[in-house]
């Protein structure tokens, strides 16, 4: 019987060290938050008014959105969204 993929990979020692994973995850969240900062803020603002989750999300997203605007990091996403809107217009 074929070895389950998750066990085979574990036995092979596939992947990278834990420190490397932490670095990759950290970079992912920082870069992802900056590239999507303006959308994160817009999404957070649509959450239920007065809810603690909204307060936390808006507080976290506001500086990200400001940084993304200052560095023009929202431009790639806006360009893709404009392209999608164009091709899906009736």
């Amino acid at each position: 019987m074929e070895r389950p993929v998750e066990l085979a990979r574990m036995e092979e020692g596939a992947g990278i060290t834990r420190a490397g994973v932490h670095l990759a995850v950290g970079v992912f969240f920082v870069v992802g938050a900056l590239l999507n900062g303006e959308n994160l803020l817009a999404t957070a603002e649509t959450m239920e008014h007065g809810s603690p989750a909204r307060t936390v999300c808006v507080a976290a997203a506001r500086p990200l959105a400001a940084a993304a605007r200052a560095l023009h990091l929202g431009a790639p996403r806006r360009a893709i969204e404009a392209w999608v809107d164009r091709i899906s217009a009736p």
Partner: protein
Amino acid sequence: MLFPTVTFAIFFVLAYTGHWLLHRRPLAWKWFLLAASYVFYGYWDWRFLLLIGGSTVLNHGFAVALARAAAPGRRRMLVAAAVASNLGTLGFFKYYGFFVVNVYAACASLGIPCPLPLLDVVLPVGISFFTFQAMSYVIDVHRGTIRPAASCLDFAVYLAFFPQLVAGPIVRASTLLPQIERPAMPARIDIGRASILILVGLFKKIVVANALATGIVDPVFDNPENFGALDTLFAVYGYCIQVYCDFSAYSDIAIGIALLMGFHFPINFDAPLLAASFQEFWRRWHLSLSTWLRDYLYFPLGGSRGSAARTSTNLFLTFVLGGLWHGAGWNYLIWGALHGAFLVVERILRVGTGVLSLPRRLAGIAATFHLLGFSLMFFRARTLGDSFALMRSLAEWTAPTLVSATVLAAMAAGFAAQAFDGDRARRLWDAWARWPAWVQGAAAAVILTVICALGPRGVAPFIYFQF
């Protein structure tokens, strides 16, 4: 808390950080994981925590009592009580409304008052998944294949572990419990596999499943009488691909997230839309449920040990009950019965045995896909009347209004996404892991941004949350 949302991203950053900071202190680590999982689950409705907490205490109590009991009669009584209490809980939350409505209808037709009260019972998210996990834990202890968890805390973490809590995969205690009881975090993490699983899962959900749902499936299935044959046909094809992308996306993301935290879950999907028979389909689709049904229902019913007629009956019954697992409704029952019937017919005709030539394999894939679509017409439709309206629409040849390039591209992308199932993307996983760690993080962020930009605004709940 849905995976592809800001709320989950914030939650995951905190859960991931706490998990890795505390993993060398097992007791604090377990309490932290339990608290994080309960926050994740209680975010829907804090009252659900009473249910999962009660289920934890009850099932662990049964398991410990089973391990201590020596007399076969007492052990049988304990396991029967555990199964009955789990099925009773599931039955009340999931099937009470359906049962009462049908009793009301029967009583009304006989002209007698219905003795049962109508209650507005809220269906707790993921109840079917964690109840099945809890049941298999007690049954496995009864069978002697596992020992009870070392503590109730270990079992509580196992049952509530957030990546797989609300929509599977149904990870058996024999797989996950040892990883919780003796946390030996791996020195190396399979980040290539985790990243690809999460990104492909997000693509399947945010882009493909949402595009198909809004572009063709929901409009046609919600108003079947308004559309002609081609729209209906493509909506059915679209739903086959949507339900695969939606459900496998959740499993992929769950497996990927668990992997980043050092846990190993078994795969749940293996390119099911390429199955050339229903036997093969059920070896590729929702594997954690199909193997659960096999081990805890089909085998106890007798499996294939008896006559051909008995085997067919066992198979059929297993799938009828598997259909009902998805929800209380005639549509799910018919869907399960159809799959049971397809499997029985395949056994009789000996379809799907042996190696197939390419033309026969392609014919088998096409036939299985179309029969799957037929069964899903019942599964997805709001009412049985809508299912029949869909079938009538297939005979009305009018110009399609919803079959657009976007819909066709989404269908093609969803079908192609099966190339990442199982271990087919092994080379890509390894290639990804060879990049410097910061490049991996940045690349994943860029791909995520593209996925979010390609998808429709907003994220619909995963289909399998309702089960």
